[in-house]
């Protein structure tokens, strides 16, 4: 008990969050806080974009500034918000969920985190030094003729790539070698499965982007001529390299989210997950298939026509494992005893919005229709339904779900529900009109658009402002709850996964003694109140 209190004293020392700390829980918090900071920046940029597009005509940003803004909005939201924030959850929760005392390589873990502020700094610097202004896709030759900021941006993204590669190595190794007694692969929580799938994807895809960015940097700095068309350089080459990473990146950003949903739904439905193996395997299927679809971003480029059909088919097939997940989630809540905490609401919101993103994804996989909507606002709508309605909703779901465990305090549910309502309405109002404006002739990344699209864009901008408001509500809620929210018990949701089988927040080495797993992670309803009996069962088991 005395050791406990000592550890708690260390727990409360906030300074360690600014040091090279190897405790995965500290690193997890560092990840989360940093990512949310970048979320604010990226969001602010989004507000700028929508304000410029509020009405036709060039209002307060000229083409150059606008391109810088969208480039940084994209880069920040992808490389510095969604990917790190999900890695943050994994850092904090994965060892707890498998009953480990830390990650396999604590120092490497710290390195992966500290690469993020550094890389982020580079990306932000690119804003001020001659700026990257080619969109986050950095298509050549545009990105070769762009100002110096492009090089700095590339260096930043390379560093962030290393961060996620090292993180992935850590997650896989930890999951393979550090599971507690009785934690077989079929007892793994689905979030861990999804992190496994994600990590394998990162390991295979990210290095290719690194290589590609090195080519661009070499061209810009050392005078190589990979992308000098006159000398026989080929712009399509970059598109292949870029999308080989950047399409899987979408699954890197959504799979952990799906994992979070699969944790939250059973807990608040008081029902076992429906089709555990199907969900686990579909994650794996998505990550394997996800590596074979990249060229569907190049249907309108001059790529060899014969290649488009196989890539269309693989892209379409991705819909099958995705569908399995969605239906399994429906099966999970079906006949349950649903409790609508903010976390649960965001999970349900995830399903309903991700569905739209998924369906429109199938639309675009079809080559002829893609010839129509490619690089239009239809795509912008689709990708925001997936990445905002999907990933970001899952992040908030996970945040409300795990906040008590991480901080030892409860969040304000009422504010949470207000945030959800605002965010759900705002997101749909923002992104639904985009499908129409795209089909009616609004290309992507334009600072100005045809007058007849004014009303649709007005709707979108209003929705964006509502979204902005909801984010403010969230930060208020998080801050106040963290400072003076009511103390949380060790297992406020009566969940069965191992992270709840220890104190909130957990002690330095996570468990007084390592739990022994005797049953699956979602055994709700087995025996009345199984959730209550299990905890004791766990700890005494050792």
């Amino acid at each position, binding site marked *: 008990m005395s050791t406990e209190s000592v550890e708690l004293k260390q727990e409360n020392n906030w300074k360690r969050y600014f040091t090279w700390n190897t405790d995965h829980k500290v690193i997890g918090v560092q990840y989360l806080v940093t990512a949310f900071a970048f979320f604010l920046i990226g969001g602010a940029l989004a507000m700028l974009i929508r304000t410029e597009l509020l009405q036709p005509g060039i209002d307060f940003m000229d*083409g150059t500034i606008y391109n810088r803004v969208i480039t940084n909005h994209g880069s920040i939201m992808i490389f510095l918000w969604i990917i790190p924030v999900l890695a943050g959850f994994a850092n904090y929760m994965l060892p707890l969920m498998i009953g480990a005392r830390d990650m396999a390589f604590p120092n490497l873990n710290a390195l992966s985190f500290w690469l993020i502020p550094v890389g982020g700094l580079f990306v932000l610097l690119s804003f001020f030094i001659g700026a990257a202004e080619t969109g986050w896709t950095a298509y050549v030759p545009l990105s070769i003729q762009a100002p110096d900021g492009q090089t700095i941006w590339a260096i930043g993204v390379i560093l962030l790539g290393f961060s996620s590669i090292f993180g992935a190595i850590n997650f896989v190794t930890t999951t393979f070698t550090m599971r507690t007694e009785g934690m077989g692969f079929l007892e793994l929580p689905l979030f861990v499965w999804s992190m496994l799938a994600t990590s394998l994807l990162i390991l295979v895809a990210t290095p290719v982007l690194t290589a590609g960015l090195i080519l661009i940097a070499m061209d810009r700095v050392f005078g190589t001529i990979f992308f000098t068309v006159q000398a026989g350089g080929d712009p399509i080459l970059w598109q292949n390299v870029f999308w080989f990473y950047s399409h899987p990146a979408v699954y890197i950003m959504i799979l952990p989210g799906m994992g979070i949903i699969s944790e939250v739904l059973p807990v608040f439905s008081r029902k076992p997950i429906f089709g555990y193996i199907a969900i686990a395997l579909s994650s794996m299927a998505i990550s394997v298939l996800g590596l074979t679809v990249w060229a569907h971003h190049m249907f309108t480029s001059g790529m060899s026509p014969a290649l488009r059909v196989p890539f269309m088919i693989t892209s379409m097939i991705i819909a099958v494992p995705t569908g399995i997940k969605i239906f399994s989630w429906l099966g999970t809540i079906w006949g349950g005893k649903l409790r609508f905490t903010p976390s649960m609401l965001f999970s349900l919101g995830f399903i309903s919005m991700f569905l739209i993103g998924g369906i429109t994804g199938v639309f675009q996989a*079809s080559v002829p229709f893609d010839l129509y909507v490619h690089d239009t606002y239809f795509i912008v709508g689709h990708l925001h339904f997936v990445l905002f309605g999907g990933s970001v909703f899952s992040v908030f779901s996970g945040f409300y779900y795990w906040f008590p465990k991480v901080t030892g305090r409860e969040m304000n549910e009422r504010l949470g529900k207000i945030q959800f309502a605002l965010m759900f309405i705002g997101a749909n109002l923002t992104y639904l009109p985009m499908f129409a404006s795209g089909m009616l002739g609004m*290309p992507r990344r334009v600072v100005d658009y*045809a007058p007849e699209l004014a009303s649709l864009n007005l709707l979108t901008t209003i929705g964006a402002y509502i979204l902005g408001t909801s984010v403010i509500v969230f930060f208020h809620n998080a801050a106040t709850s963290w400072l003076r929210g009511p103390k949380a018990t060790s297992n406020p949701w009566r969940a069965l996964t191992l992270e709840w089988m220890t104190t909130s927040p957990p002690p330095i080495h996570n468990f007084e003694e390592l739990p022994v797993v005797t049953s699956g992670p979602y055994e709700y*309803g087995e025996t009345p109140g199984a959730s209550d009996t299990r905890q004791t069962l766990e700890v005494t088991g050792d």
Partner: protein
Amino acid sequence: MKPRNIILLLILAVILITIGVLVATTIDVSAILPIQASESAIYIDQLFRTMLGIAVVIFLIVEGGLIYAVFRFRRKRGETGDGAPIHGNTLLEVIWTLIPAIIVIVISIYSYQILTEIERPGVKPLVIEVIGKQFAWEFRYPDEEVTTTSLHLPIDREINLQITSEDVIHSFWVPEFRIKRDATPGQISELILRPTEAGTYRILCAELCGPGHAAMVTEVVIESKEEFDDWIEKQSNLAELPSSSPEGRRALFITQACGSCHTLDDANAVGIVGPSLNEIGAIAETRVPGLDAQNYITQSILQPNAYIVEGYTSNLMPNNYGERLTAEELQALVEYLLEQK
């Protein structure tokens, strides 16, 4: 399952399928679609409606199920028990794996058919070269040796666009044709289409190509064979006109492609990258104190960045007209612009 439930299920299925069929066939979705100006548009809209029909059914099933569950299975006050310990149902899981699989395979096959339809090479097509450059489109009719800044197409004729770029990647897109194709430097990509609806439509650039991306807009005019022939006739004559005559000076303005970035009614130019040149003759001297109209226009042509009109971006206009134009051509061009009052 109870027979009653089976019947309910069947009724539900019938309703959903009817909705789907209606969406795919009769319900009017033109609100979110531009008019169909080419054959490809007709095919792609068919495909879209079919997919939309299927999508609506799936959407209704999932969202409907979600909403039903939310209301039907909400936890009662003070209830602490768990739901039924159901871990899965092999039959169900097989069903919801197979049905989507079949659907996407069908869509793939259908898409493939549509693709071959819209990309079937035409017989003796009219070949036009399309060149994208920051930030304008240029069109060359090789047979007639005509170069223009707006695309004119004869209706109901096989067209074969040879698309390429001078600098960075652009993308040639006419929403009314549905299809688009990237203009990639160093390679020529082919776009096959068959205009079916006379009219004037916008040509947009769909690939981010720099600060002027949004303004890289020009028009495509679809007209009857006769109108088209007259137009091409007129264009090919322009080149011969002497720059002493007013027509010759206008011709110079057109052949130098000034119109791809500037609006000028007299030369029916519609460019919006740079400031409009209507009445330039009148306002020229008001622009820079100490520069009279003549010198201002000359400077604006030779050193475009010396003075940027309010609301426009610098470094968009090529600054090499000094080399491109002969002295008398420059002279004639300035004269022509001075006439625009």
